[in-house]
């Protein structure tokens, strides 16, 4: 059944699983070893990985993928509100609804290609966002975001147990899904998604998508209908986004409209490109880097900087604090912008290309293409 995976691939999955599962320990020295951020790494890793199945393999740049994230979140929270706090149905609903949404949007948007496709997806996502923010408030609770309330029916839970005082927590058969258990739940989801993605990359279907990317026209001339393949890829990547959205709700039962805004769609594009388009690991790394910056850099303030530079004489310290202050705290966006520019200018293939270069320099590879099996799939964005 898994005949298309080589021994190296299995080792890759195993290695990946280990790296993910030990991350609470390994990331602590970097200040990232706390559940909320670790959860975000996994969730956005899934989101970016799914996005990459569409963008990386077929070259179709969707600028509205955040819509599926939002739909997944809303569906999951509604599952908590209506049925049960158990996360399994929530995840299923999230993926399912995002999938249905993706069928509709994908069917329409894939009638066009290139930037016209991008704008169509952007338009759909922006419509979803604007409506969710205002007119659809009965479903989405508008700006505040959809939250659990004490009045929720929760019919399945309430049929079996008397609700306690206060809001219930999301749980997996009794294990509350916040903090580290929540992280491990997301981590397992990430590992499963990674495995699935690897399989897609190695499957004939994946090859077909790559072929579409490299020469759609030629395939059209030969009378080959590419759209079913594209639509399938679109739906799969929409479902990944739905899963990510539902996991966001699992770890924090709230769904806000701004998850669907174009900036959120833009973010996943940035993550993917930053990490390395079309590579297996790249998007996950990209997601990690951006979330890390957002969480860690924005938390720096002048006081922390003062401490950091306390070894300097007064005048030099002031200059140092002022200068670094430009890039952290409220200036963290500036850092983000600068990093994007540096990466794109100097590392067109994203972080993965950087790693590949380091690997080659260390003598690990004797030439291009001799790197790790997953990076061999790396190719520049078209």
């Amino acid at each position, binding site marked *: 059944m898994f005949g298309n995976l080589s021994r190296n691939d299995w080792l890759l999955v195993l290695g990946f699983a280990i790296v993910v599962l030990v991350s609470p320990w390994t990331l602590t020295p970097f200040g990232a070893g706390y559940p909320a951020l670790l959860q975000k790494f996994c969730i956005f890793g899934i989101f970016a990985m799914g996005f990459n199945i569409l963008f990386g393999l077929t070259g179709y740049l969707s600028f509205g993928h955040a819509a599926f994230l939002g739909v997944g979140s809303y569906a999951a929270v509604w599952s908590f509100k209506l049925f049960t706090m158990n996360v399994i149905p929530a995840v299923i609903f999230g993926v399912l609804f995002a999938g249905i949404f993706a069928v509709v949007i994908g069917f329409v948007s894939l009638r066009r290609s290139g930037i016209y496709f991008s704008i169509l997806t952007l338009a759909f996502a922006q419509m979803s966002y604007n409506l969710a923010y205002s007119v659809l408030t009965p479903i989405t609770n508008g700006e505040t975001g959809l939250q659990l309330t004490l009045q929720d029916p929760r019919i399945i839970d309430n049929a079996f147990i008397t609700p306690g005082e*206060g809001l219930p927590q999301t749980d997996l058969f*009794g294990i509350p899904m916040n*903090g580290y258990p929540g992280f491990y739940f997301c981590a397992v989801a990430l590992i499963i998604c990674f495995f699935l993605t690897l399989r897609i990359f190695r499957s004939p279907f994946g090859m077909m998508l790559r072929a579409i990317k490299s020469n759609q026209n030629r395939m059209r001339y030969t009378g080959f209908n590419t759209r079913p393949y594209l639509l399938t890829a679109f739906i799969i990547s929409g479902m990944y986004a739905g899963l990510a959205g539902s996991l966001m709700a699992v770890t924090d039962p709230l769904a806000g409209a701004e998850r669907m805004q174009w900036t959120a769609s833009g973010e996943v594009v940035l993550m993917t490109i930053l990490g390395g388009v079309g590579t297996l690991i790249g998007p996950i790394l990209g997601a990690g880097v951006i979330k890390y910056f957002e969480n860690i850099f924005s938390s720096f303030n002048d006081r922390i900087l003062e401490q950091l530079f306390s070894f300097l004489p007064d005048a030099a310290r002031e200059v140092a604090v002022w200068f670094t202050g430009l890039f952290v705290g409220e200036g963290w966006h500036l850092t983000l912008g600068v990093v994007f520019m540096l990466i794109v200018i100097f590392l067109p293939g994203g972080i993965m290309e950087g790693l590949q270069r380091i690997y080659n320099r260390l003598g690990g590879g004797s030439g291009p293409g001799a790197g790790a099996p997953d990076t061999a799939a790396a190719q520049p964005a078209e």
Partner: protein
Amino acid sequence: MSKLIFNRRGILKVGAAGGVALAAPMHFVKGAFAEDMSCNMPTGDTVTLGFNVPQSGPYADEGADELRAYQLAVKHLNGEGDGGMMNTFTSKALKGNGILGKKVAYVTGDTQTKSDAARDSAKRMIEKEGAVMITGGSSSGVAVAVQGLCQEMGIIFMAGLTHSNDTTGKDKKRYGFRHFFNAYQSGVALGPVLKEEYGTDRRAYHLTADYTWGWTQEESIKNTTEALGWETVATVRTPVGAGDYSQYITPVLNSGADVLILNHYGKDMVNSLTQAIQFGLKDKQVNGKNFEIIVPLFSRLMAKGAGDNIKGILGTTNWNWSLDDDASQAFVKSFGAEYGAPPSQAAHTCYVQTLLYADACERAGTFFAPKVIEALEDFEFDGMGNGPTLYRGADHQCMKSALVVKGNENKQSEYDLLKVVKVVDRETLTYDPAIFGGDLGPSDAKKC
């Protein structure tokens, strides 16, 4: 209680044990669950507060001013500087040696004025940096979202600038407290002044930001004006961040309305007001009366953005630096000396909230959240710039005076943008907490 709960607890234990085995690091093995331990109770010689303010996005300037106020409050709590409102505050529990003898430290985060980002950043401060209390915010959506999170995690949330009725209404939480006034109180405060200035025979046209805060404000003001005998011509919802409002403003011209009420805040307010003036609404005569514009919620920082357009326009505000009571004076002096500019209303409410939390801990004698909540509920105090104030236990809303202000026609300084027309007293603004529904929920401590 049904026995099934018992069963569920059983599952929970097994599950949690599994979780512990999996997640062995840090938090799960940290200390036994003692009787009165709540989340992040400080164990060393410092106590960490989490200041969660918008540092990017449209409210970044307000966030910066809030942060200034927080830093000032920390200074005063630690016994540095001139003490500001600690000297005028009627509760004398604070000694200027930190809180309960622990030096106050703080961590900061950027809410980006987005619920998700705000919750992420609050979570970081709680999970990673050990903040025992979260405060801040410059929008109701964010306040409600963070308040919900804090309830789940058992961390006290002292709301910053949030004006929606929901924050202490239908979305109120046991762990959330608001010092700032709300849309309902704005309406009540404005009523008599509107009657006095514009009479009882008016036709009002509402432009309302299309989200929860806008709606509650529209509703509150509409109720007030209709009670005065005003007619509501139309209530039009405008998209948030529309930028150009011309297409919403032009219909006002021929609608027969003689009052325009802008239920906008922040950048939206600056834009819609600027453009309304541009369309000549202020110079218009309708039904033999001067056309008037009302902005129910004012802030000085926004007034600055609107420039001269603000002149003569009525609105309400929680507090203004021009107040001449001792407390306000002490605060303005202290803030002005530190930063060279007077504090905004957002800065004021954030400063007060920090002091109130610290004071509650002192009075409770512990950081244990349920006890601190108890100390805050139904707490009576004065000397914080809004006269005698009650932290109402039923909905965690402060009952205090608020201000009706007018854009200053003749300013004495760069910051002298708002003129206080009337200080509306606490009795007038007190309402029945039941009207907005909601449920505070339990105060039982959470470990984290």
